[in-house]
Structure formats: C-alpha cells, structure tokens
C-alpha cells in the first residue's frame, strides 16, 4: 500500500493554517525549565547587564525571534541593560533589527540602556577574548562607533561586569559558551534554543553548567505567559498542538496499517505452505 506523501503535507499544512485563521485558545502549561529562566532574570538587579548573543542563522528566525523577543521584553521591562552581539554572520543583521525594534518599543536609549557589538568570526577566540577584554574583541560597535564612545560599554571590561549571558542559538554555540566562558571564567549562561537542540543541552543544565534552557516556540509561549504578554509564541501554540496531534495520529495509523499488512502477508504465506 502506498500513500502519496503530498497528502501528508496537505494534512500538516491544514493543521497549521486552520488554527492560525481560527484560534482555538488551547491552554499552554508553563514548565519548570521556563520558569527557572524567568526567575533567574527576575533575580538580576536593575541596571545589571545581560549579554545577548545571536548565535543562529536566518533560517531559524521563526523559532529564535520569539525567544529573543521574550528575553528582551523581560530585560527592558526590568531596566536590565543589554549588550547584543552575534557569533554567526547571519545572526548579525537579525540581532541588530530585533534589538533596536524591542528597545524602541520600551523607549530605551542606545548607548545607555543597550548596545550592539555586531559580529565576530572564530567564536572560540571571541568568547575567550571577551573573558579578558571585550574592547579588544570589539573595538567598535556594529555601526563603527568606538567602544569607549558608548557610555554603557565604557562600564564593561569583561565577563566580570556581565550578569548573565543568553545565547540565542540554533546549533552548538552554547557548548562553546560553556567551555570557554562558564568553565574558564565562571560566567553564568542561559540558552534560548530551537526545540531540536533542547535534548542536547539537558545534561549541561543537569550539571549546573547552564543555568536554564528556553526551548523553541513553546518555550517562548510559556515565557510570554509569565510576562503576561500575548505575542508570536503564544499565537503559534494552537497550530503547534494541532500539527503534533495530526502527525501522531498519522504515525499510529501508519503503524496499524503496516502491522495489519504484515499479519495478512504472514497468514497468506502460512496458508500457501500448508496447502
């Protein structure tokens, strides 16, 4: 038995499109992992500095943008200052847009409440270098303004002046933050990840090397609930749930049919042998 796979694509597409057009308002439960990240940011003092690293490619934007926005909303709402940077080339422009967009919504002033350092290649060298001097790694910001001409950056020498590093990532970058910033300089790390990466970082959270993980669109939706906002993460959860349900149902049906066919073939073969 053969099913045209385009039928499966159509079912998944419908499961996504219909709840986007007609929201169901399905409940979203907040997990302990997300709550831990939220509470860690709550414990930061006002005026402390969070370093937000856009360690992802443009292709994962639908997942990482809600995550970055949720973290930035929380930071700006609590008057926590933000220093943005990118260790992936594609993340550089994306991070620039997201940071300026969110800062504008919260009436934050560039250079005082936030700054954007831009991109550096060779993430190992960049992460290690910032442990000694961020100015050495980023002599200017993304717009070529000298480091020392930016009031916020003048106060920051190295990780000692950073309260928390948040790596918004779609790959293995948080591992490098752990190896070179956490293990070597004791810098606290939080990872905001695409869902596909979550299981890979569970051991690091368990070992206390990463203080918390925020995973995928679901993680962003949970964070938005804690913030009392309704944004991209929460909006997509109906579609996410229905798509998962449709995939699970198709897997069950596929297995039942395959099992039935196998039994039928075995019965036919047994009948053939006995005759």
């Amino acid at each position, binding site marked *: 038995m053969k099913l045209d796979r*385009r039928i499966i*694509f159509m079912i*998944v*597409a419908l499961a*996504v*499109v219909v709840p*986007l*057009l007609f929201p169901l308002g399905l409940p979203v439960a907040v997990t302990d992992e997300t709550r831990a990240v939220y509470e860690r940011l709550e414990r930061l003092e006002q005026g402390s500095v969070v370093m937000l690293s856009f360690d992802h490619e443009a*292709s*994962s*934007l*639908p*997942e990482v*943008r809600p995550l970055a926005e949720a973290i930035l909303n929380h930071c700006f709402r609590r008057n926590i200052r933000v220093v943005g940077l990118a260790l992936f*080339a*594609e993340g*550089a*422009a994306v991070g620039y847009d997201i940071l300026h967009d969110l800062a504008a919504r919260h009436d934050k002033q560039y250079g005082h409440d936030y700054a954007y350092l*831009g*991109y*550096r*290649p060779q993430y*190992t060298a960049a992460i*290690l270098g910032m442990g000694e001097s961020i100015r050495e790694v980023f*002599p*200017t910001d993304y717009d*070529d303004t000298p480091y020392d001409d930016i009031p916020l950056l003048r106060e920051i020498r190295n990780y000692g002046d950073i309260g928390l590093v948040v790596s918004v990532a779609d790959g293995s970058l948080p*591992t490098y933050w*752990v*190896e*070179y910033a*956490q*293990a*070597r300089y004791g810098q606290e790390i939080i990872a905001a990840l*695409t*869902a*596909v*990466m*979550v*299981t*890979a970082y569970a*051991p690091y959270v*368990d*070992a*206390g*090397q990463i203080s918390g993980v925020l*995973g*995928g*669109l*679901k993680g962003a939706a949970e964070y938005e609930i804690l913030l009392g906002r309704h944004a*991209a993460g929460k*909006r*997509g959860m109906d*579609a*996410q749930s229905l*798509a*998962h349900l449709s*995939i699970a149902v198709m897997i069950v049906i596929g297995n039942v049919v395959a099992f039935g066919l196998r039994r039928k073939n075995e019965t036919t073969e047994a009948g053939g042998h006995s005759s």
Partner: protein
Amino acid sequence: MSDIGIWITALATLAIYSFLYRDNPFYKAAEYLLIGLTVGYSLVISVKTVLWPGLVLPLLGGDTAKIIPLVLGGLMFIRLVPKLGGWSRIPLAVYVGAGAGVSIPAMLKARVLQQMGATMSNVTTISGVIMLVGVITTILYFYFSREQKGLLQPVAKIGTYYMMIFFGATFGYTVMSRVSLLIGRMEFLLGDWLRLIAR
C-alpha cells in the same frame, strides 16, 4: 518590511514550498538565490567587520605585526597553485595546533570532567540513580573490546533502551522545531502578506 520586500519574501517562500509538490524551476531559482545571498552576505560582513578593521586599517596605520596573519592567510590560498600547494600546510599547522591547544583542555573540563562529576554527585536521588545507570549501560554498549555475551549483554541492552528514549525525545523535539518553522512562514504569508490574521 516594505511592501516590495514582503512580496519578494512571500514569492520566495512559495517557490521553496513548491518543491513539496515536485521539483521545478521556481524552486531551483529560489534555492540558488538563497545560496548566492548567503555567500554574498557572509563575504561582505567578513570583509566589513573583520578584514577591513582588523587587518587592512592596522596595516595602513603601520602595525607591522599584522603582516604575520596576512602572510599566513595568503599561504592558505597558495594551494590554488598546485606546485606550491605544500606551503599551505604551514598556516594549517598553526591553525590546528592552536585550535587543539585551546580546545582540548576546555572540552575535557566541560564535556567530560564536569559531566562526570555531576553524574556521580547526584546518586542520592532517584533521578540521579536513573541517570547513573543510563550513563554506565550506554557506555558499556559502546565497549567493543569484548563480545557482548554473558552479563555484558543484558547490561548493554539496557543501554540501548536509554538511547531509544533519547532518540524518541530528540525526534519529538525535531518535529516540534520543524513545525515551528512552518508556523513562522504561514504566519508571515497569512499575516504580513495576505493580511488575513493580525500580526
């Protein structure tokens, strides 16, 4: 995003998704556009943020120490001349040596020692014991110096169950991740482009 930008993005998205029906010229065009843009963007940003401020400007300013990375970088390209290709091994040796020197101690500490410490120090809880059993049985599954017979066989079998749970969880998260990407594109098409839903 401007209206023209939204239309270009929407048409590129539809061109990529058209592959789900069958391969076609629109998909190919969008694919090549993506590859070209990615390479061009990476090149420009590397020149703008690295080569120009980190190498060219210091050299023009009289920083002679930058001649060393310039020469090493140049030697990397010399492999394009087959007769002189051997010279490219010098910068490669520097790169591999420095990379190994920096990464081996860091990886050993973060990925092995700290992980082992966390595994062993947590055995007073049920989850800690489950974790410890998982680590030991999975490692024993990959012990290839002895045939998996006798006691080793059931122990390694337990390791495979742990791995299957991991694979299942990872697959579930992968599905979730891919569906999230689809949702993002559909929100763009229905919201920014067709304006059927609020953004």
